[in-house]
């Protein structure tokens, strides 16, 4: 268990070991959250780099009002969403075929028996607006407690529950469209 106050103070003083320790502690979560947003390894690595560069740059401004993990997750979520926004603007001018090639994302860590369903999950998540997608990723993929999700999103527990309900409703609509094709492929 790292002492958050000490580590952040050390980083803001330029302590490289402290920064390495923070990276060791949070990199896997940052990377996996970014991966859930981008569904692309290179892009997730890019975002991870951006997040830790920001953490290093703004360490001095961390006041300790929230947990360190909450602060790092917030930077991760915002960086990921901004990345997707920029990418969306850019792909409007690109050939649509090249963007369709990236749709079927297979998460490297999913259990074998859940692989097909996980592919469907990542596919339908694309239909969600930013806040519903964030609530869903943090709750169902990162498996964070609901209160922590609320803290990261700077909202109430009730709002998070409402976002999740709407997210599942929207995803259900998309999954129901997919279901007839699934039945045909199983035969």
């Amino acid at each position, binding site marked *: 268990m790292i002492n958050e106050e000490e580590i952040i103070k050390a980083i803001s003083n330029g302590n490289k070991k402290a920064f390495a320790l923070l990276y060791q502690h949070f*990199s896997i*979560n940052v990377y996996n959250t970014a991966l859930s947003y981008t569904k692309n390894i290179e892009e997730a690595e890019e975002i991870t780099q951006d997040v830790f*560069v920001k953490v290093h740059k703004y360490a001095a401004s961390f006041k300790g009002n929230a947990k360190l993990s909450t602060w790092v997750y917030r930077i991760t979520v915002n960086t990921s969403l901004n990345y997707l926004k920029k990418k969306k603007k850019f792909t409007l001018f690109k050939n649509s075929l090249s963007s369709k090639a990236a749709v079927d994302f297979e*998460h490297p860590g*999913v259990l074998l028996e859940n692989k097909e369903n*996980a592919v469907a*999950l990542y596919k339908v998540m694309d239909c969600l607006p930013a806040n519903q997608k964030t609530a869903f990723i943090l709750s169902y993929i990162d498996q964070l407690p609901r209160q922590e999700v609320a803290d990261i999103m700077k909202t109430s527990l009730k709002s998070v529950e409402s976002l999740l309900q709407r997210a599942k409703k929207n995803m259900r609509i998309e*999954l*129901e469209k997919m279901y007839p094709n699934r039945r045909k492929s199983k035969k």
Partner: protein
Amino acid sequence: MKEENNKWIEDVFQSMNGSRKANVNPALFAKIEDRILASEVAIIPAFGWKQFAAAAAIILALNTITMINYNKSIKSNDQDIAAIESNNQTLISTYQIYN
């Protein structure tokens, strides 16, 4: 069929249960350190930018003054040339070489 559909949808929502986290590329930390170092080295002092802006403003002002003066000199040259030509005409008309 509706029940089967609903069960499948629930299975999809829960499909990431029990999954392990994806591993981070071990080379990533070095890249982050390089980026931090590069950003620390690349800071250009504001003083330098102010000097550059001041120099650009002076050059622009000098160029403007030069252009204005150049235009004035062209006009006065034109007047001089016209005066010289009219004198030349007088000279030519009054000077007969092989008289």
